């Protein structure tokens, strides 16, 4: 017995060693995109990684209709973040796919090391990004001009509101009038105060995603300056954007229901709030969450107009086995006409400028949203979107500021301390 006990500390260390998982990673692969013709047979199998929830299968089916000899093996890896994590692991030393979707929020980390991907200029020429929104292409462009991804879609931003609740509160109900009434954020808050006074109910679902995500993307420089310096702390535009969210909370018009929290879906159905953020890809979820509110919602231009939330690019890893097949997919499915057709079939908002200006997009309406001019509103929001540089820590900084607002709404941080809390935690994330 005694002897066994004497060994126990040793065994213990062994057990701890067993139980703790370490992170491993292979060495990063270097080497830029191959020049000239892509190697491989365009009709050989293409391994394609996409995310769940965007129904990529529709696109693949369409492609196979157009190219009956081609073969595509589609994997829906997981959420956008999970897919980016899996891609990172694969790039670091595993088997890479031939074709992969990357969500815009995850993009800066990959753009920072463009050598991991095929420079698409080598396949499609120097003007390969020409047809698409400038800011969307630039988001996928490396330091020396390498285009590592073609924009597949963008997340045109608008606000959705309940016309019936607006009417009961004595507010305008027509989308154009509403957009006019809340043309600035100050007016938006005033409107919310009127609403809350009249009904006793909160106006917006929350201030972090609905207000801050919108305001912080209506800037000329965000967390980085145009030459890549971290400036979020000193940039007055960011602080103002944050302050709008704090003011909205201070006005007492927020329900404090975080997006995707348990109260959010029921809140949309039972009128816990009257306004929520509405990027193009969220509209379907609104229908699913609150089917009984058909015809009550409207979609209007958000305060101060422009916005984008989300969107993705499609890329070919440098070590892909079949870049020829991957490129054939991109050429076939990402042309402006193909994106437009994909929009009419699935509602995925195109990233190609001609598609955004087309009749099909601008005239798009939906009876669920009272035939609001959804297409026009969203197209305007992304066409008017002003460009700014996103660096590798953009999402970490954004997450820290967002969390400070969430914590303020939970009552844990005083509104006047929220900015400092957010800045401190963003600086911690940066390693400062």
């Amino acid at each position: 017995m005694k002897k066994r006990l004497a060994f126990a500390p040793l065994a213990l260390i062994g057990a701890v060693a067993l139980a703790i998982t370490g992170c491993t990673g292979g060495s990063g692969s270097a080497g830029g995109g191959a020049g000239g013709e892509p190697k491989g047979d365009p009709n050989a199998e293409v391994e394609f990684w996409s995310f769940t929830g965007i129904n990529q299968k529709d696109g693949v089916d369409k492609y196979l209709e157009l190219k009956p000899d081609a073969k595509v093996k589609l994997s829906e890896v997981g959420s956008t973040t999970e897919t980016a994590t899996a891609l990172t692991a694969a790039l670091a030393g595993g088997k890479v796919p031939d074709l992969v979707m990357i969500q815009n929020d995850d993009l800066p980390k990959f753009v920072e090391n463009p050598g991991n991907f095929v420079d698409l200029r080598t396949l499609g020429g120097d003007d390969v990004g020409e047809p698409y929104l400038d800011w969307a292409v630039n988001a996928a462009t490396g330091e020396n001009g390498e285009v590592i991804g073609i924009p597949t879609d963008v997340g045109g931003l608008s606000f959705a509101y309940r016309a019936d609740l607006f009417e009961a509160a004595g507010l305008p109900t027509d989308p154009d009038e509403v957009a006019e009434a809340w043309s600035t954020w100050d007016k938006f808050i005033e409107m919310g105060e009127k609403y809350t006074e009249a009904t006793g109910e909160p106006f917006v679902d929350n201030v972090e995603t609905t207000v801050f995500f919108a305001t912080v993307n209506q800037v000329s420089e965000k967390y980085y300056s145009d030459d890549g310096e971290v400036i979020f702390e000193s940039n007055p535009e960011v602080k103002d954007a944050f302050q709008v969210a704090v003011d909205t909370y201070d006005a007492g018009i927020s329900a404090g229901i975080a997006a995707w929290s348990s109260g959010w879906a029921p809140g949309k159905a039972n009128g816990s709030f009257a306004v929520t953020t509405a990027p193009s890809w969220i509209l379907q979820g609104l229908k699913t969450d609150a089917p009984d509110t058909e015809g009550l919602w409207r979609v209007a231009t958000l305060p101060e107009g422009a916005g984008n939330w989300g969107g993705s690019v499609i890329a070919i890893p440098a070590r892909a086995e079949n870049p020829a097949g991957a490129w054939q997919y991109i050429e076939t499915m990402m042309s402006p006409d193909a994106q437009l057709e994909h929009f009419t079939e699935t509602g995925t908002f195109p990233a190609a400028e001609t598609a955004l200006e087309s009749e099909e997009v601008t005239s798009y309406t939906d009876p669920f949203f009272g035939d609001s001019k959804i297409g026009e509103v969203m197209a305007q929001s992304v066409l008017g979107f002003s460009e700014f540089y996103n660096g590798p820590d953009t999402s970490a900084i954004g997450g820290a500021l967002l969390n400070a607002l969430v914590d303020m709404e939970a009552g844990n941080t005083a509104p006047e301390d929220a900015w400092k809390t957010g800045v401190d935690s963003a600086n911690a994330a940066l390693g400062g």
Partner: protein
Amino acid sequence: MTTTATTPAATTTMAIITRGGPKGRRPPARRIRSSWAERVAPYAYIAPFFVIFAIFGLFPLLFTFYVALFDWNPIGDQVFVGFANFERLFADARFWNAFVNTFGIFLISTIPQLALALLLAHLLNHARLKYANFFRMALLVPYITSVAATAIVFAQIFDRNFGLINWVLGIFGLPSVNFLASQVGSWVVISAMVMWRWFGYNTLLYLAGLQAIPREIYEAASVDGASSRQQFFHLTIPALRPIIIFTVIMSTIGGLQIFTEPLLVAPEAGLTCGAARQCQTLSLFLYEQGFGQFDFGYGSAIGVALFVIVVVAALINFFLSTRTRGER
């Protein structure tokens, strides 16, 4: 004691059997030397474990120590930075926050859990229970239930808007509690989950230990006039010491690495387990830095720190739980 008395002859026989006899015949030495395979065989039998452990356990562990010295981007550059990651770590409020959370959750979940498990095992062992086997099996159900399923159910129970607890509070006209928004509240939710999952497992371990204690000791104690409370503290607990040590150490190792529960308790809160990192544990912080931010060097430094913390905590617990014997 008459029942256990043995004849002298029987005692001698026992001695001969156990000692192998006074002139126990040994096999010839030559045979041992010739069977080299026989000597190697035991090592070959245990080799698969150690080989696999070396590849999937030891190598990643050592490699983590190595990576912790770099600014390591998995898809970019790897720059040697010496101990800079550790300097940053010790100055990082998020690390200490995770440290406090981990120990908070560990203490709230483990201490009452082990005490209750011991008590329940005692009851299951001594009471004249009908269907005792049913109760013993039922204890294992939470353990074999997937953590993910447990997390979803508990998240529902403690939910701010539609949770069972807040519903009950509402019936009595009390305001609803947003458990996950506060630090202690979220610790309680996670601890409840951990207790639910491991309570039965530890009870069964204690029960197995209790059943191995000979009845005669208790009978003797009763004859000597020891109350059942005295029996519990002076017989049961000392006899269970090896098992108590085992459960304490395993709970320490598991509890300090808690990951799944805080990750799943509030999916919308993400890898920080809430906006103020109110329930982010060390493992979750490691995962956030390593696989959320792809900062493998810093993530590895957290891993090394976690390793040291777990070893130290387990050693402290080990010496504390072995020392209690000396006090008797």
